[in-house]
């Protein structure tokens, strides 16, 4: 019995579909990238253990509170009573809004409590105290 020997062995990786794959990856990263980011205020976040991840950056608005008591939303400084109007507009534009409170660990509770009240008045009720992960 004779075997037919294959002489030609095609060992090339097909590159014809490579651009398509690259484009697909490209589109994925384009969609997931949020370009507009704010630098906020210089703060030291407190540490906590039982933390949750925020689901989406698109639905998150950050409020920075510095040690000195400054309040910053999207790189603009506001006083406590202005927070209501700013957050109300955001909340009406996006009902899924989650507010991430990035407050310095030395900030005083009087200010944080004031922000709580303003957020309640603006009906932005989902709040997240931004923290670092505590080790042990």
């Amino acid at each position, binding site marked *: 019995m004779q075997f037919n020997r294959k002489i030609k062995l095609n060992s090339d990786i097909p590159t014809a579909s490579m651009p398509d794959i*690259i484009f697909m990856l490209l589109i994925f990263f384009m969609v997931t990238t949020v370009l507009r980011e704010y630098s906020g205020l210089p703060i030291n976040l407190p540490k906590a253990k039982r933390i949750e991840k925020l689901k989406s*950056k698109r639905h998150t608005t*950050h409020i920075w509170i510095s040690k000195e008591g400054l309040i910053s939303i999207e790189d603009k400084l506001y006083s406590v009573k202005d927070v209501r109007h700013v957050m109300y507009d955001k909340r009406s534009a996006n009902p899924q809004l989650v507010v991430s409170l990035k407050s310095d660990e030395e900030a*005083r509770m009087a200010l944080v409590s004031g922000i709580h009240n303003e957020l309640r008045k603006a009906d932005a009720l989902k709040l997240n105290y*931004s923290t670092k992960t505590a080790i042990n």
Partner: protein
Amino acid sequence: MSQKKRRFKGGEIPTSSMADIAFLLLIFFLVTTTIDMDKGLGIVLPPEGDTIEIRKKNILNCLINSQGKVLLGGDPVETKNINRLVKQKIQENENLIISVKSHEKTRYKDYVAVIDQLKRANAKRISIAETGD
């Protein structure tokens, strides 16, 4: 003067460099994408003007003073013990609501530490009272 007639050879866009261009864009977006998500302690605030009367036995007051010392149900406790104590009390009474009240000058750090402890005790009903003197 004679003019040479050029023969039209069919216009084609060179596609050999397309992959390179796509790669370049891909790398740009790879670099600018931040995968790490924000993390923190989630809490839902009560709606405005929403006051419910609660029976006294279902409330556990948790007071934080300006030095970060905690008074849990009238007894002074260490922050790191809140987790254990609250767990016990929730087991005794499922409907327990923990009301956290802090002094105006309490540091945010101490407040977050208390909320973290309550979260670790699986306390679902946390109420945040306004600050007082």
